[in-house]
């Protein structure tokens, strides 16, 4: 039955389409009138003269399409925060194929919320578990430099827990970093964060939109059981050359972009390189031996009025010691990703074709100072073919794809390297039904198979739904079943160890599985204030947890939580408060425990003030402690004593004795206050921005990790003052 299901779905769609084919089709793109950049998430609303209303939000490429439209007069509106609203009228007849390109002009009152009352049309998909971030959101968070980064804004989301400034690990609603699917233009990244927690592989200047699904994600995503971070990058300007360069004690960055062929092809190139390892001693009086950087490039070509090809490449490098002590455990990793995409939105059909191919590689090595060095590589190559059909009150998307993956790893560099290969095949179908009266339902189904693992085809149903009860109230929910065949192994007991080896689940073990359930409400009592509350539950089965000397331990678990998010935007203020509560419990055959990322409470307050050339920003974070495994003590392990051993005089191997039941201790609470001030100077051809910032203003000693063998407590970053400047040519 499972083998014929995709064919049946295709047949059903083909039968349904002719009935819609005689009707009119309206498609197009929405761009910024000043720089030609595609705008993502713009609400495009059609009001037919008979009172019927249809809504869409532009996709990650700024595109929209309506199919199956009956003849008649339609009022078209497009609204987007920070832009003047667009309004026009169209007369559509049977069989019309209309292409409408909308250029939105930035509003004079950019920070005011522009709201067009649309009765109860929900233009966007269900917001359950989803946070959509745009470049303006990324710039709000104070950081020790002017480049801006996705990592900063991720850490203020209520459902996201970070271990801290060192190591770059994000835990989303109880899931571990290796359970997060991270995509950049459809390419997987295995370690998307830099060794310093302020930075990811995504500088703000390359991000067009980031969709963060903290859970309950739809059928187009798979292979991970916790969350999705789907980053779409921006295209270079096709009208004019531009760029920027910034310099700060943590990081230097350069971005250039411009047309290759005006109005047809463009490029964008971004390079960042850390300098903190060279200047930290002078700036903060403490060595911060972290070296990291990234390079991103993208080419984008229009191949027709409604089609384009893009090529994206990304490379990140990281090296250092997580503890920050130069003579200690050293880790380094490299990500490489290269991908191509062809997108076609034909005028004759209310459909879109999206084809991607990608290659990704991740290499990491870890050299503990008292244990054998380890290496782990993973390479993947694959692609996806996806189709979207836009019907009168529904979008239907389906696609299939495949990946081949190769894993090479050794936990002792002097020993043999283990190699595994596997192939993944996927098919998905999902629909977004607008049922009227503000109700949207998005059922989906994903099929996954790993022929080399000789497992049954995995069938994963998903359901997302929302009800825009009024312009001021939206209720949403999401449910889904998720499986993860490829797992990342890192030692759960050792926070200082971010080394991860990727591998397939052993054949005699079941595939890790998660069930998600989300229920949320968003209230917008005024045009400037929004309050969102979301409760969630995750059931986790057959996870493979690496627990130090016990090896892989099969574990189950539950996560329950509540996210609250309040925002208030009225010029010149932009305020955000988030609170997250989550409770994770893992259990195995021996014990039940709270995993080390189980921070129960997290509170973030973010404030921004903009007036003229000035911008002030602050962030305050408070998080309760996280579990850790307490220690009994340390001794020198002399090995099995026998007549031939030198146990009487040998120095032995220093060994810590952990408490038998893991994670019964609790670290101190974490809090940090960051502030920054910026001022722009208009130099005519360029804008010069000066920034002064202080990270950890109160110099709070936030605990990071304890080196048992040295009896050394390692803290997060101390107070870090910073001065930065950026020059932008646009």
């Amino acid at each position, binding site marked *: 039955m499972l083998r014929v299901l995709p064919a049946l779905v295709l047949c059903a769609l083909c039968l349904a389409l002719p009935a819609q084919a005689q009707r009119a089709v309206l498609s197009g793109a929405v761009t910024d009138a000043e720089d030609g950049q595609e705008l993502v998430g713009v609400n495009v609303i059609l009001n037919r003269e008979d009172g019927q209303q249809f809504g869409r939000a532009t996709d990650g490429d700024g595109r929209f399409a309506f199919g199956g439209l009956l003849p008649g007069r339609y009022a078209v509106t497009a609204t987007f925060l920070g832009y003047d609203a667009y309004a026009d009228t169209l007369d559509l007849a049977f069989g019309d194929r209309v292409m409408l390109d909308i250029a939105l002009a930035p509003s004079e009152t950019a920070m005011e919320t522009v709201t067009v009352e649309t009765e109860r049309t929900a233009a966007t998909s269900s917001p359950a578990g989803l946070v959509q971030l745009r470049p303006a959101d990324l710039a709000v968070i104070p950081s020790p430099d002017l480049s801006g980064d996705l990592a900063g804004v991720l850490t203020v989301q209520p459902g996201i827990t970070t271990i801290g400034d060192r190591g770059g690990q994000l835990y989303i609603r109880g899931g571990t970093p290796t359970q997060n699917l991270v995509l950049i233009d459809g390419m997987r990244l295995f370690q998307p964060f830099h060794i310093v927690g302020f930075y990811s592989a995504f500088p703000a200047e390359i991000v067009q939109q980031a969709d963060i699904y903290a859970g309950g994600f739809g059928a187009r995503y798979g292979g991970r059981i916790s969350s999705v971070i789907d980053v779409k990058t921006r295209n270079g300007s096709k009208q004019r050359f531009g760029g920027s360069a910034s310099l700060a004690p943590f990081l230097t960055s350069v971005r250039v972009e411009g047309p290759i062929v005006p109005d047809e092809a463009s490029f964008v190139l971004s390079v960042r390189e850390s300098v903190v390892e060279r200047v930290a001693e002078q700036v903060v009086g403490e060595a911060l031996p972290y070296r990291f950087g990234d390079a991103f490039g993208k080419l984008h070509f229009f191949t027709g009025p409604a089609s384009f090809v893009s090529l994206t490449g990304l490379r990140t490098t990281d090296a250092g010691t997580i503890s920050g002590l130069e003579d200690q455990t050293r880790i380094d990793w490299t990500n490489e990703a290269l991908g191509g995409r062809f997108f076609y939105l034909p005028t004759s059909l209310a459909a879109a074709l999206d084809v991607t191919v990608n290659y990704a590689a991740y290499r990491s090595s870890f050299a503990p100072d008292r244990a054998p060095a380890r290496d782990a590589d993973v390479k993947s190559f694959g692609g996806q073919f996806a189709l979207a059909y836009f019907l009168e009150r529904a979008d239907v998307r389906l696609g299939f794809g495949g990946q081949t993956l190769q894993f090479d790893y050794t936990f002792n560099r002097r020993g043999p390297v283990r190699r595994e290969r596997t192939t993944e095949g996927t098919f998905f179908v999902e629909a977004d039904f607008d049922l009227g009266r503000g109700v949207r339902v998005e059922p989906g189904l994903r099929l996954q198979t790993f022929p080399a693992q000789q497992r049954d085809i995995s069938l994963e149903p998903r359901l997302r739904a929302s009800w825009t009860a009024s312009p001021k109230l939206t209720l949403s929910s999401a449910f889904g079943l998720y499986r993860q065949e490829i797992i990342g192994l890192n030692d759960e007991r050792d926070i200082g160890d971010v080394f991860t080896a990727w591998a397939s689940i052993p054949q005699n073990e079941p595939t890790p599985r998660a069930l998600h359930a989300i229920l949320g409400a968003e209230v917008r009592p005024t045009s400037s204030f929004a309050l969102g509350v979301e409760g969630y539950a995750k059931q986790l089965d057959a996870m493979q947890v690496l627990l130090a000397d016990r090896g892989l331990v099969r574990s189950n678990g539950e996560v329950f939580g509540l996210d609250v998010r309040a925002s208030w935007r009225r010029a010149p203020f932009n305020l955000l408060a988030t609170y997250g509560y989550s409770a994770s419990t893992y259990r195995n055959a021996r014990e039940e425990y709270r995993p080390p990322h189980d921070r129960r409470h997290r509170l973030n307050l973010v404030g921004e003030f903009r007036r003229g050339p000035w911008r002030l920003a602050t962030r305050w974070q408070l998080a309760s402690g996280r579990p850790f495994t307490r220690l009994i003590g340390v001794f020198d392990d002399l090995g099995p004593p026998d007549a031939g051993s030198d146990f009487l005089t040998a120095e032995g191997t220093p060994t810590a004795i952990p408490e038998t039941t893991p994670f019964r201790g609790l670290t101190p609470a974490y*809090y940090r206050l960051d502030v920054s001030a910026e001022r722009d100077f208009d130099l005519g051809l360029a804008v010069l921005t000066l920034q002064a910032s202080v990270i950890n203003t109160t*110099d709070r000693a936030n605990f990071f990790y304890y080196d048992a063998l040295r009896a050394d407590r390692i803290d997060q970053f101390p107070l870090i003052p910073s001065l930065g400047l950026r020059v932008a040519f646009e």
Partner: protein
Amino acid sequence: MSKESVDRKDGRDRMGGNRSPLFLFLLLFSVATGCSDRFDPFVESDQTFALYGLLDARQGTQFMRVQPITERAGDAGTVDARVTSTDLATSETIVWRDSLVQLDEGVPGTVFLADFQPFVGRVYRIEATRPADGATTTAEVRLPAEPTLRPEKPDVFNTLVSQLLTIESMGPPSALAVTYTVRPVDTEEPVRFEVAYDEQPVPSETGFGLIVNLSGDVGVILSSFEENTEVELLDLEMGYDLTNERPTPVIGGPGQIGVAARFMSGWRLAPEFVETLGLVDAQGAE
């Protein structure tokens, strides 16, 4: 053992030296939220010492390395402990004496020793006690008893004789050697020849088997006498060392205690095989 909290490593003032109203507010806020930054990684435990030692039935002096469980690697140094061993068959207790030794990297360590030769097949309780509070780390160590040596019927191929011997022990025997006690018929003094077998005995359901090349061994023995000397076979013995397969775990602390013993197990060869080997059967005559 001290269990004091471990504070931040550099001892920075929690709020720095700035006394502006903002910092005062933040200080009050942090106090109000009760955010102590103290961190205590240690938990109280009954684990006191790490014990590494060997009870060796072949030696007249026994040794035990004793380390305290500390909060920091390399802090072991000297040990304040009382170490005893008790033969559970006789309840005889021996108090071990301590000795400061220099470890390989020049730091001091503590070794305890006692002058006695443990008996095979007996169980000894080793106990290390901390005088300050009486906390103890113990291990009950069983020395292996002599296993049965089971000889199979010798295998004869032409004039070559070999024999499978099975040592019915739990763990693999090592340092195997066959001792032939012979005597030329015209002399009074017996002569012992020990032939070492370096190969590993083969595990079986009942123990560990070794094929003894009797013809080969006897050929070497006879070649040490003048030609045509008539030689009597007085005795045959298999010698081997036994250790416990897994060192005894320690209770109340980490560590392992090994055991070692050497056994000599004799067997008799049927007269016709002795004759085939070119010897005169005199087994049991001595």
